[in-house]
């Protein structure tokens, strides 16, 4: 393993708490986006932000304890994210062809109420 010397002057001396705080803020932004937006493409993008911040925590922890496991976990999260995006975007395409909208609130046929009758098929 390559260990840097003092003369390199490229040391990161930021404490781990600030780095985890940054990842938490990023997760919070993604969560707010997921809860606020109703356009389903933006909801998928917010899920991407959240997955990315979770992976960032893994890498921060791996860099802190000098283990490669954090980066391995990042690669797995990347795999899961890619599979999720491909299936999710295919579902969005089907949704747009069936309902002609991207509003997530338009898909409420499973809701058990009388409101279902005014929804266009």
């Amino acid at each position, binding site marked *: *393993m*390559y260990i*840097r010397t003092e003369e390199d002057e*490229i040391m*990161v*001396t*930021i404490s781990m*708490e600030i*780095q*985890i*705080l*940054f990842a*938490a803020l*990023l997760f*919070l*932004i*993604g969560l*707010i*986006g997921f809860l*606020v*937006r*109703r*356009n389903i*493409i*933006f909801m*998928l*993008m917010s899920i*991407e*932000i959240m997955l*990315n911040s979770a992976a960032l925590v893994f*890498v*921060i922890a*791996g*860099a802190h304890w*000098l283990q*490669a*496991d*954090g*980066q*391995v976990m*990042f*690669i*797995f999260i*990347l*795999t*899961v*994210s890619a*599979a999720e*995006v*491909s*299936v999710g*975007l*295919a579902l*969005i*395409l*089907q949704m747009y*062809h069936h309902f002609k909208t*991207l*509003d997530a*609130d338009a898909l409420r046929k499973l809701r058990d109420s009388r409101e279902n009758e005014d929804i266009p098929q």
Partner: protein
Amino acid sequence: MNTIFYIAAATALLSSILAITNRNAIHALLYLIISLLSISVIFYILGAHLIAALEVIVYAGAIMVLFIFVVMMLNIGMEEESEKKWLTPGMWIVPAILASVLLVIFIYVLKAFEYEQAATEIIGPKQVGVSLFTTYLLAVEIAGILLMAGIVGGYHLGKQKKKVMHRFMVKDGERK
């Protein structure tokens, strides 16, 4: 180096906020790519060079291209009507206050414990690869199966199905 971290973190946060508040889908995707790139800078600073490269290639390269293709295929308009109701201040001010209280608690808990300084050693691709193909070999196989399921699912769901009609209901032009 610390200054670079702070600048990259501020850029990531700002561009993520702009990405989720934008009404135009393509502009939001561009902001999201900026956010991913600045997170890649942070990975590089942390000594995870392989991960920084993968973030740019796979996230900002492949996944965002998928998003952009779908947005272009759908030919999305500027805004949805129901989101105007959601984005009024009365709707989000109270949950925002509650969330900031939680944030203050989180900062306090993190401050209460003494952590050491962040790592300055590089964890190289060789170390990651050895760990990936010895300790996590089974997980790699499962990830391969997951990607296969993603391919099959994407193909099946993205396929345009033909409308099935009775043979007497075929339009005149299509009858042989």
